[in-house]
């Protein structure tokens, strides 16, 4: 309810963000039209980044603001289970993110003339990616002082946008960074969404789902622990 007046604005920003990633990165990489793999990465990376921007950027920013204004303590003093608060907020954020995801995909089909096959796993993949981003984002927002949250999340967004195998294959990265991404969630987020839009012949991999679930659980545990902690 509190965010009601901002929802239309945030949806628009999300749509612009996804569409700009598709078109903007295509300018950066003029050879992309001759590179179907690159086009696929970019097309499916855009919705991934839309979800990352919400979960690791906007949502933690809002939490930090709430914390600074004492709203978080107000919520904590209400007779509402912590999990219900988290679930309600996650639902709102996923709702805000979805139009951006759809717009990104639509822009990609226009720009690259791609044939995307929507696999039944797309919906769970999107939800898992969104939840993982939100869980990690909330975990950060709850544990880090409000002033620092913006800095941390901006760094993460930067890392996700430019230094993660989300919009491009991992083999373009230096070895150590590629290795780091076998532990970080970003590459797996891109992978589950990419594979459920363009299923590889050998089938959709299970590993990314497992790794993302672990990250999701870690973030949620952290957020839940902080929510329940009494100073």
């Amino acid at each position, binding site marked *: *309810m*509190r*965010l009601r*007046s901002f929802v239309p604005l945030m949806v628009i920003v999300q749509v612009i963000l996804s569409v700009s990633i598709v078109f903007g990165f295509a300018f950066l990489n003029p050879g992309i039209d001759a590179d179907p793999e690159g086009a696929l990465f970019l097309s499916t990376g855009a919705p991934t980044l839309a979800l990352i921007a919400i979960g690791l950027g906007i949502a933690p920013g809002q939490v930090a603001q709430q914390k600074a204004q*004492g709203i978080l*303590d107000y919520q904590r003093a*209400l*007779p509402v289970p912590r999990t219900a608060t988290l679930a309600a907020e996650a639902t709102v954020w996923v709702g805000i993110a979805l139009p951006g995801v759809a717009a990104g995909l639509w822009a990609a089909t226009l720009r690259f003339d791609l044939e995307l096959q929507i696999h039944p796993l797309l919906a769970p993949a999107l939800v898992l990616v969104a939840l993982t981003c939100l869980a990690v984002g909330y975990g950060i927002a709850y544990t880090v002082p409000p002033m620092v949250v913006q800095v941390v999340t901006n760094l993460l967004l930067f890392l996700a946008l430019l230094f993660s195998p989300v919009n491009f294959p991992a083999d373009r990265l230096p070895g150590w960074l590629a290795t780091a991404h076998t532990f970080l969630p970003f590459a797996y987020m891109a992978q589950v969404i990419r594979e459920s839009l363009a299923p590889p012949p050998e089938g959709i991999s299970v590993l990314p789902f497992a790794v993302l679930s672990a990250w999701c659980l870690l973030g949620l545990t952290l957020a839940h622990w902080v929510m329940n902690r*009494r*100073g």
Partner: protein
Amino acid sequence: MLHLSEVSKEYRRGVRANDGVSLNVAPGEVFGLLGHNGAGKTTLINQVVGLLSPTTGTITLDGVDLVANPAHARRQCALMPQAHAPLDGLSPRQAVQMLGRIRGASRRRAIECADALLAALDITAWADTTGERLSGGVRRLTAYAMAAVEPGRVVMLDEPTNDVDPIRRRLLWQQVRTLAAEGRAVVLVTHNVAEAERSVDRLAVLDHGRVVAKGTPAELRAGTAGELRLELLVATGTPLETPIPTRAPTRRTGRRHVLSIDAATAPQALEWAQRLRADGHIEEFSLTPTSLEDVYVDLVGPGATSADVTTAAPGESGTLVS
């Protein structure tokens, strides 16, 4: 009903916010927690609702341990925090109804109670204005309504009258009395001593986390029976020479002089003050029984006058003789 026993709270950096606080609040009672900023009042009520946990000591409500059952504490204790309630994008009506629903009222009851409360506080005119456009006072009254719409057994109000205009303050106090009359325990945190004196049944004065006095306002004033206070507002900045016997050194705050005198000295003091006014040395004066505020200032020691004790405006409390 609400029982705090030897509650101490020490923060990690070694700051002792509460030190062996024991209190009992009965149903139907408005209990005041007085103390200047940083005396540990807010820390204490945050421990009751489970936002903080005491380092040592117990907090029980009707025998149920609230420290071990924070969920029970939150169901039974409604808190109006000192910070503004979250009202962005919400109108007072929506916010109060929503809190009623969250606290377990039926939809219909929430609507009825919200309307009744907003009307009782005379803020119906802003009932459908969103929070960003509300004045501080209306936000504060809305926050009160959010706590009072479907309260549990205990209602805790942290500085409820800040920013509220004098007329609506009275309405607010009537509502607080109603809450108590319905059998709830009301804990009122304030540093406005004059207001507390008129509104609470019993009170505790906190200083540096310790209870330094406890009782009814009359009990706390009892030690000063036969004592009067003469307050003078001098016309110039020059301190006045006092020709009458006083019980304590004159307290001066700017142009305001406060003298503590024996009741027997009253005629003499009155004559002196009238003469000063006739000669234009003072602008106004008042002779009143010693107020709780005087007791309070004595209790929390010298320097407390500068420590953000909200004082009554001239003429606001007691009997004005001038």
